[in-house]
């Protein structure tokens, strides 16, 4: 260690360091143009000149390459240093009068002009470019000539073959003398492009060292070997110089890791269809024809245009945008994808609505489609809102060609309207709603694993084992199983985990280790002794915020006993150090000023626990994400902000109390309400994973609505499979059936429910840890289409029954008419019942199988045979089933006239009324939710406007409720076919097991608490809590009867009750009123 004086202050540096390095460490600013951390200093620009006093005399040296020595005295800010630098700047101003960085320096040194003769150069001969080029391992350029003739040049002034156009020279050039464009035009023959960012669909570029996207897990950078210079030349490795923790190792090799596993889950996903092969759409040629994935990025705030809606050719804000549906879906001609991709209708509507939100309602959005497939939960509503409220135009037409408008960037299309009129319309931008397809690599993987694929290359599964591949032990989820959206993928994922878990349940907890628990120090009644640790986060914080001054400031705050800064607060050595400082200084409250608590609070809390402190005696000040990263051009204000945030955190932590977490035992048993197909699937999975499971069913038999179904869309015999399933459930020792039973009361909460069943006048109480709601739905009894007036008018399920009974009369029918959307997609039930299109087509095909000559008509509004169900639709058309579309304002009319049964419908192509005489009418009736308010009340779970249960999160929590310990599956969630019901049954079991397997859960300490003396018993808290945590103390209780209390197990600590309590009787531990006030006061101090 060498000790010397820097501006009269004693500083220390390592042997071999230069003055500049030490000065930078101590935050002393020395200007320089030719210094680069990763390169040997060269002293070229002379700006870093400082004054060195050796005890006798002083000299001027360039600090970048002047080594430090013991006892030296350095001045970086003396008048003579300043004058010297000023002269250097003036000379540079003469050489490069127009370089922005030189102009900036001139301004800083108070020079408006130079006294010397100006040259029109832009190169200051700092040599950074040649040094970095050498570092890159190329040496394509060097400094040539001497004295006034010196310049940066290639050997023999000729174009260099050595240059690989890496752009390093341009990236370091301080004056802008070297630019990528210049390299491209004059230096190299290599054609180079920016590296396209995969995440931004190539609309943005990225670096060779990169984090794929902001939310990537793990959120650490990777080096792209295919473009990194080191892997081309062996040079560079500049990144290692910048990494403060030496985390970069270029010698790392790919490893082959062998894992022994009991189950495999395949979730390789899909790739968006590449529309390049559709030459009539000109996707490759025209920048304003984009894919929906590109549109997603353009609409995203983190996208290439920061969410500003512009078209790519000229960055003009579009006035008219069109979406083309079914690009790469439902199309055998050009892309061999006969299936429907399931998700594109919905995402196109979403994009259109968001585009209008971004650009204003004047934006004209038109969606060109074949059938509008909004069959998901709440999707039909969204479609209607897009149409009626946002004014998105929906045009039923498939457009063949996109023609560029000559002389403009606009796009012209011609299409036929529904009335047959030909229309030409010009759009600013056209979005291709590309479908989903399976990557060829995945197809290869499937071959390797020896699993069967469907015609669409999706993983082949059966309706009754929808996440099992054809090979035992290998499971599948997500879009590889079939095109699907997020909720369905999430349901799949849980189900696949359950399926894998069923295999592995014997091995559960065999590889776990117990954690050592350190006894907690009692700090009650102690005066706060706060430790503040300010993190540099390498240069992430310290590069902007003056970290030492923040730490110094923190030390002056009330109750702060200790404050320091460190390089990386989260590194293991710092953590250890933190523990020892806590002990040594007897600290009882900790503030870490670093990054965000959302990622790092648990880590530091664990450190506190390791030091024996209650983990809630902790607060973070977010001086990275909320400060240094977003205010890098105003370092002074950023430093001030960091101080403010630290002051606020200190004020809060001083008032923090140790909080208690309580243990909650989870009873290892489940109650499944409903013995239909999804309820049984859930029970099977729970039982197979070792949990006692009760099924309560109000009817006398298991099977639910599946008892009424004939075939699945894959042609499986439902009754046969159902019988197997029921047998299996009945024979399972862990499944306890309660048929003809009714739930009459539910008490308790997650982990310990007590449910009272009533059967035949007898009551029985069951204790269970979790509950699964699988109460299903019922078919609508139609009040229209003359239902009930003629035996030939049936519902779909009644027709199924006749198939099951193998009714011989069916063979003799001459004609059959199917009417779709009976009760669905109408004001009373404004949702799509999802299963009916496929069901009717399947039944039409079944009739055709029985009598190929039968005339069959399907009257529909949109055919919604999503995914690979589309094949049935195709097959039906091929077999001569006639599809006639009707509009909801002009529904088919049925007349029963003696023996004649006729349907009148307006043909959508001819626009004329048709009269169909028929022997059978099948009505595709809506699926109606049970709207079970009693059950909803028992488990404190919500129902939506339609009467279906509301899941925790429409996308990410589809099989569980916001109320802990209660799960959801089957048609109680939304209408769905058998395969999806089974998947969700398994998914609900899977989610339940995440709780059951833990046996004991710790509740958070940061929860609400009632101060009963202040409680007015008004019940706001009881009413408003989404989690049913507050309740009234019983009227007969000895203390505080009728007052509110909060169940710590159910409380999520949101504070809704706290803010709603007019009486101020509820406090939120961890975010108490006095703490928030302390923060408000501290921030405004």
């Amino acid at each position, binding site marked *: 260690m060498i000790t010397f004086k820097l501006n009269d202050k004693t500083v220390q540096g390592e042997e071999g360091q230069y003055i500049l390095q030490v000065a930078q460490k101590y935050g002393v600013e020395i200007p320089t143009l030719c210094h680069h951390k990763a390169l040997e200093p060269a002293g070229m620009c002379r700006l870093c000149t400082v004054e060195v006093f050796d005890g006798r005399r002083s000299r001027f040296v360039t600090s970048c390459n002047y080594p430090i020595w013991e006892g030296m005295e350095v001045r970086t800010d003396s008048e003579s240093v300043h004058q010297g630098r000023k002269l250097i700047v003036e000379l540079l101003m003469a050489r490069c009068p127009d370089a922005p960085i030189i102009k900036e320096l001139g301004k800083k040194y108070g020079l408006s002009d130079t006294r010397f003769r100006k040259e029109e150069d832009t190169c200051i001969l700092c040599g950074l470019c040649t040094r970095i080029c050498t570092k890159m391992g190329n040496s394509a350029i060097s400094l040539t000539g001497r004295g006034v003739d010196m310049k940066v040049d290639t050997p023999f002034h000729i174009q260099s073959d050595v240059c690989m156009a890496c752009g390093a020279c341009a990236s370091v050039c301080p004056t802008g003398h070297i630019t990528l464009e210049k390299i491209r035009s004059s230096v190299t023959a290599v054609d180079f492009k920016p590296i396209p960012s995969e995440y931004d669909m190539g609309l943005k570029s990225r670096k060779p060292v990169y984090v794929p996207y902001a939310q990537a897990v793990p959120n650490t950078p990777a080096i792209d070997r295919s473009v990194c210079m080191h892997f081309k030349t062996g040079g560079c490795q500049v990144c290692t110089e910048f990494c403060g923790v030496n985390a970069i190792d270029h010698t790392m090799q790919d490893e082959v890791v062998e894992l022994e596993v009991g189950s495999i889950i395949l979730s390789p996903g899909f790739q968006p269809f590449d529309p390049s092969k559709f030459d009539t759409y000109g996707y490759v040629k025209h920048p304003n024809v984009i894919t929906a994935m590109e549109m997603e990025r353009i609409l995203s705030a983190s996208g290439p245009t920061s969410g500003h809606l512009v078209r790519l050719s000229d960055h003009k804000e579009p006035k008219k945008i069109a979406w083309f549906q079914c690009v790469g879906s439902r199309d055998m001609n050009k892309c061999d994808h006969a299936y429907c991709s399931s998700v594109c209708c919905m995402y196109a509507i979403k994009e259109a609505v968001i585009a209008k939100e971004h650009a204003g309602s004047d934006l004209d959005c038109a969606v060109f489609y074949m059938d509008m497939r909004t069959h998901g939960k709440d999707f039909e509503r969204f479609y209607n809102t897009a149409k009626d409220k946002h004014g998105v135009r929906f045009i039923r037409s498939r457009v063949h060609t996109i023609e560029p408008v000559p002389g403009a960037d606009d796009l012209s299309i011609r299409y036929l309207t529904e009335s047959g009129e030909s229309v030409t319309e010009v759009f600013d931008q056209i979005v291709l709603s590309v479908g989903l397809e399976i990557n060829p690599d995945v197809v290869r993987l499937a071959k390797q694993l020896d699993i069967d694929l469907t015609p669409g290359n999706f993983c082949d599964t059966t309706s009754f084992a929808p996440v099992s591949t054809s090979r035992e032990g290998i499971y599948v989820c997500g879009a590889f199983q079939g095109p699907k959206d997020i909720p369905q993928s999430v349901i799949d994922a849980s189900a696949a985990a359950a399926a894998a878990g069923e295999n592995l349940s014997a091995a559960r907890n065999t590889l776990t280790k117990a954690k050592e628990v350190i006894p907690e120090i009692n700090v009650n009644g102690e005066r706060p002794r706060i430790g503040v640790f300010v993190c540099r986060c390498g240069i992430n914080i310290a590069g902007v915020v003056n970290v030492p001054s923040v730490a110094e400031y923190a030390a002056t705050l009330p109750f702060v006993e200790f404050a320091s800064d460190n390089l990386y607060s989260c590194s293991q050595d710092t953590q250890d150090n933190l523990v020892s400082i806590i002990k040594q200084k007897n600290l009882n409250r900790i503030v870490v000023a670093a990054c965000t608590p959302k990622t790092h609070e648990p880590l530091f809390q664990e450190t506190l626990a390791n030091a024996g402190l209650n983990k809630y005696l902790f607060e973070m000040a977010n001086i990275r994400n909320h400060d240094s990263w977003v205010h890098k051009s105003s370092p002074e204000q950023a430093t001030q902000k960091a101080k403010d945030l630290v002051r606020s955190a200190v004020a809060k932590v001083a008032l923090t109390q140790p909080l208690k977490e309580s243990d909650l035992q989870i009873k290892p048993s489940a109650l499944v309400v409903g013995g239909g197909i999804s309820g049984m699937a859930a029970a099977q999975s729970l039982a197979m994973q070792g949990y006692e499971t009760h099924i309560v069913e109000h009817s006398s038999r298991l099977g639910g609505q599946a008892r009424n179904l004939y075939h699945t869309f894959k042609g499986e015999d439902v009754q046969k499979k159902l019988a197997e399933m029921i047998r299996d459930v009945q024979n399972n020792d862990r499944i306890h059936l309660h048929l003809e039973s009714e739930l009459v009361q539910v008490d308790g909460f997650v982990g310990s429910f007590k449910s009272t069943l009533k059967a035949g006048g007898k009551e029985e109480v069951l204790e269970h840890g979790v509950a699964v709601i699988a109460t299903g739905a019922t078919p609508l009894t139609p009040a229209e289409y003359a239902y009930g007036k003629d035996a030939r008018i049936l519902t779909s399920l009644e027709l199924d029954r006749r198939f099951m009974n193998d009714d011989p009369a069916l063979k003799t029918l001459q004609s059959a008419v199917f009417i779709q959307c009976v009760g669905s997609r109408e004001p009373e039930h404004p949702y799509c019942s999802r299963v009916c299109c496929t069901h009717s087509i399947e039944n039409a095909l079944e009739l055709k199988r029985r009598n190929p000559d039968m005339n069959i008509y399907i009257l529909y509004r949109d055919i919604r045979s999503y995914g690979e169900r589309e094949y049935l639709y195709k097959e039906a058309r091929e077999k001569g089933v006639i599809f006639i579309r009707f509009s909801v304002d002009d529904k088919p009319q049925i007349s029963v006239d003696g023996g004649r049964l006729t349907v009148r419908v307006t043909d959508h192509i001819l626009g004329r009324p048709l009269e169909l005489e028929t022997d059978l009418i099948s009505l595709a009736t809506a699926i109606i939710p049970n709207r079970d308010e009693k059950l909803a009340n028992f488990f404190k779970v919500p129902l939506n406007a339609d009467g279906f249960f509301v899941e925790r999160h429409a996308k990410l929590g589809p099989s569980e409720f916001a109320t802990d310990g209660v799960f959801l599956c089957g048609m109680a969630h939304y209408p769905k076919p058998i395969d999806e019901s089974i998947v969700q049954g398994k998914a609900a079991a899977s989610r339940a097991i995440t709780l059951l397997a833990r046996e004991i859960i710790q509740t958070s300490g940061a929860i609400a608490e009632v101060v009963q003396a202040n409680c*007015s018993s008004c019940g706001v808290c009881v009413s408003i809590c989404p989690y049913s945590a507050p309740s009234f103390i019983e009227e007969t209780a000895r203390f505080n009867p009728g007052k509110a209390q909060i169940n710590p197990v159910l409380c999520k600590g949101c504070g809704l009750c706290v803010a709603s309590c007019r009486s101020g*009787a509820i406090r939120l531990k961890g975010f108490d*009123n006095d703490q928030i006030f302390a923060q408000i006061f501290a921030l405004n101090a």
Partner: protein
Amino acid sequence: MSGYQDKIKETAERLLKEGSVEMVVGFRKGTLPMMNEPCFIRRPEDVRQLVWDSNCGINLANYLTDRKEKIAIVAKGCDSRNIVTHIVENKIKREKLHVIGVPCQGMVDKRKVAAACGGDIEAVTEDGDVLSVTAGGAVQTLSRMEMLQENCALCAHRNPVIYDELVGELVAEQTGIDRFAEVRRVEALSPQEKWRYFEDLLAPCVRCYACRNACPLCYCPTCFVEESRPQWVGKGQNPIDIRTFHFLRAYHCAGRCTDCGACERACPMGIKVRQLTSKLNKDVLDMFGWEAGLTLDQRPPLDTYKPNDPNDFIK
């Protein structure tokens, strides 16, 4: 309306005699003219004290808070709505109440009468729409309808919402009244004008909390203005603290206020405190289609959380 008074006495006497209630809450003559005061009758012989006329503006629901005995209460439209709110908020149990419903035709504003007569009021009698006021020795006649409290003139729920018996036929509800004209006028002001308006509106406040005490909605064991940790509101006459008190009080009434006018009637400084609650009543009606105290089946909208609550105010 004199018929009401006899019916009230008769009912009260019957209820007390048969012992179905322990107490009857009603009005009796006050010490000053036009100032009827609440009274609590426990003995049948005291029912003669009971009165009913156009000076019964005080909201009697305020006297029910946390009572445990069986009570009969004389309730006009707004009182009955506050009784509903009280039941919903667990301040009293329905089965402990016998509501003697009074179809109401509005209460008279004493300040208006005083201003019209220009002197101290010595006596008032009423006959239908005619008020005969003796002030400064002279008798003047005034139209009762013109002297109504503002909230009564704008009342849309004159008939009791819940009752066990009525003292007269239900009256026709007023139609075609614009309840929120004054609110809209203030809403239309520029921010500066609005600031001035509220500054002037609340300037006379002496922090006596009469408005709060008259209000049946204000029943917390410790009111936020009296709490010291945290001290939500400063104790003095600082205009910021005065405003904070009024704004927060108004917010505590959002979705619960029946516009009974008790607050305004109680204010010794004549501050139009209903201006604040009316604005919130209007917002709650616009956003949630809700008026307080009309149903026992639902909690006020601000007591519940629904994912589809209106949020158009967030832009």
